[in-house]
């Protein structure tokens, strides 16, 4: 009833090709952004902001990165954790070598280092496909893991072997380090994620995105219609790793505050891959849904337990959470194998024709 596009006429190609052609979508997005930028920092509790929202946004960004590679271009990757690590370590090196340059600049630049590494490990994708490529990217993960632990130069020879995030400011307000307020950190993360999501959205809806999807759907056909495979594939690796790298830098600098190399292990790669699969391959909004389900669900279950004042041992809660999240994943995949994004699309379609479905 409310979600109906009747009467909205497009009179130019620009209107017709807009990312959000329906007015209600634009209003909805504006409301979401207003809540995210104004409502959450104003009314969110410290726990909600630093333990739920910041991680969610960081994981969403990493999921978008992997989605570009796996969802849009069809190249399965298990190296996400490693690429995130490259971003984090690059950012740490850059900000300790040039401490006067703004940290936001370094966070965005550190993604290019991840990009470079991504292209390097993306080279096998020109020859191999599917599971074999997954194994090739797995080697990237193991190599990077190894490098983070063994090269003390990466952590400036810290005896703890970990990144120790220094204090950095933006307009005189601390952004990283222990004195940074959660609201400030959140707003920085949100701005970066919103900006990069906008770029990603433009990328995947444009020529480049179409060439990626053509490669995904049938690489032979894509080649025949004039798409240069090596370019499209390597570009996908570059862009995907860039997003993962920025997500890694955000994770360490604005969330953890200090991180051991173990954080960027194979577990992290799988964690992000699950988000992408559950959220929906080839969907940006799905990346957010996936991150919300995989990361947020356990916290929601835990807070339910404490909300009702149930006296259950935390270890039991942990086991129950594991089982419930596992069960939910199976359930969602049975209901909709294409992920939460597809469910969202179906819901929107139903709303469009409601109350007179045909």
């Amino acid at each position, binding site marked *: 009833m409310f979600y109906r596009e009747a009467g909205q006429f497009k009179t130019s190609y620009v209107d017709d090709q807009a990312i959000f052609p329906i007015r209600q979508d634009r209003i909805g997005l504006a409301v979401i952004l207003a809540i995210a930028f104004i409502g959450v920092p104003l009314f969110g509790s410290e726990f909600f902001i630093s333990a739920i929202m910041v991680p969610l946004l960081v994981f969403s960004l990493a999921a978008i990165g992997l989605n570009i590679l796996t969802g849009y271009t069809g190249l399965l990757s298990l190296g996400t954790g490693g690429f995130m690590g490259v971003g984090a370590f690059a950012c740490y090196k850059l900000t300790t070598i040039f401490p006067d340059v703004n940290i936001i600049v370094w966070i965005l630049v550190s993604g290019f280092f991840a990009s470079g590494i991504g292209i390097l490990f993306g080279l096998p994708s020109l020859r191999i496909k599917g599971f074999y490529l997954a194994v090739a990217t797995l080697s990237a993960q193991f190599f990077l893991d190894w490098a983070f632990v*063994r090269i003390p130069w990466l952590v400036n020879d810290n005896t703890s072997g970990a990144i120790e995030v220094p204090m950095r400011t933006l307009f005189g307000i601390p952004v990283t380090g222990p004195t940074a307020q959660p609201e400030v950190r959140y707003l920085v993360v949100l701005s970066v994620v919103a900006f990069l999501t906008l770029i990603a959205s433009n990328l995947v809806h444009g020529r480049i995105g179409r060439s990626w999807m053509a490669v995904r759907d049938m690489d032979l056909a894509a080649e025949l219609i004039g798409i240069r495979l090596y370019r499209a594939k390597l570009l996908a690796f570059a862009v995907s790793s860039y997003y993962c790298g920025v997500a890694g830098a955000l994770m360490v600098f604005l*969330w953890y*505050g200090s991180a051991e190399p173990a954080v960027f292990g194979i577990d992290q790669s799988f964690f992000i891959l699950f988000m992408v699969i559950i959220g929906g391959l080839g969907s940006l909004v799905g990346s957010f849904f996936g991150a919300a389900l995989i990361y947020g669900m356990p916290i929601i279950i835990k807070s339910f337990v404490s909300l009702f004042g149930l006296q259950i041992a935390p270890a039991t809660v942990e086991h129950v959470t594991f089982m419930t999240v596992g069960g939910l994943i199976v359930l969602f995949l049975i209901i909709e194998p294409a992920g939460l994004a597809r469910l969202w699309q179906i819901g929107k379609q139903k709303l469009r024709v409601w109350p007179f479905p045909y």
Partner: protein
Amino acid sequence: MNFPVNFKTSMIAGALVAATVATALPAAAQESIYVPLFTYRTGPFSGSGIYIAEGMHDYLEMLNQRDGGIGGVKLAIEECETGYDTKKGLECYEATKNKKPVVINPWSTGITLPLIPRAAVDKVPVLSMAYGLSASAIGDTFPWIFNPPATYWDGASMILSYIGSKAGGLDKLKGKTLGFIYLDAGFGKEPIPLFEQLAKDYGFTLKLYPVAATEMQNQSSQWLNVRRDKPDFMMMYGWGALQPTAVKEAVKINYPMDKFISIWWASEDDAAAGGPASKGFKSLNWHATGDSFPAVQDIKKYVTDKGLTQTDKGHVGKLLYNRGIYNSMLIAEGIRNAQKLSGKKVITGEDMRRGLETLNVSEARLKEIGLGGFAGPLKLSCADHNGHLATFMQEWDGSKWAKIGGDIKPMSDKVSPLLSAAAKEYVDKATGWPKRTEACDKAS
């Protein structure tokens, strides 16, 4: 569905009772001291984590049951499951922070590191008992971090002086080969600079055998190298599945077990993994095992026998269970001290910091709390947040750990320059690290 009426009423009554209990809890919480315990009863390190969680919880619960808490104030003990995962540990920290915890025990170096800079800002002291950042022993630089009773560098120097005493003096180590198998992470790599320096000083050869965290259960290649290199002694810094695997592999290649020495994290299960052949395996330790202490008996009487805990009764008195007790004893003594110093009953994190800084657990005090002879006396000060307690060597006799030999003191002359250098380096790298402004209390 048709439920009988009384069933419905009893359901409503039950819900009401639950609701009142739920609303009554926060009111009671104000009159208590909130002690969150970060534990891991799940995940890859739960084999060690369960014992520690049980020991920590049971000692504090025993104080609640026997004495009604500390100084007449109940302890609100809450466990938060971290699974040894930094991500979940930080979530636990955020979740507990608003409830005014008096102290945080992260029980993972990965969780300790991010909390070190936050402790001063959030005014919550961190007690990382014999793990975490060694440099945090320097109280003037890290006023909010406590890592008693010994650092990993102390441990390394104690292992070495033990080896020296076996070889007939440290100077006799010249030309010998010492192997070091370790978890390839910050924790395991920490003693390497000290070992390297001592290798130079005493002229022995150091062989390193790193084990990646993902490869903990597959160490055959490392032990093949051990067989090739034939080190005169093996040293180990491990945790979780690394330790039983190493013991098993050492037995498999017939390495002389009495020359295999671990830092203080090897438990009974780890030693027993090699079967009867692992007899002679050694480990450092600073506290007793067994349940013969009055305080441990009280835990049995007031807590485990009454079923007020999830503890498996067979776990009481095991090495890591007792380590959990030691950790909770430090918390309890810190709280007591803080109450004395501040004159308040319900203390804050700031009071707790002062309490821990003036901690003085003498032999007489240990006896008083029913832990006489459990561990050596520990005294902390504003400058020294560690104590550098002497430890002893224990040997696996096939069924339990047996103490062998007397106290081994850390080589302070070698360790303290490293500690101060590391603390200085940390401050230099963390731009804007605050200078200590917290006043120093006199020990009471």
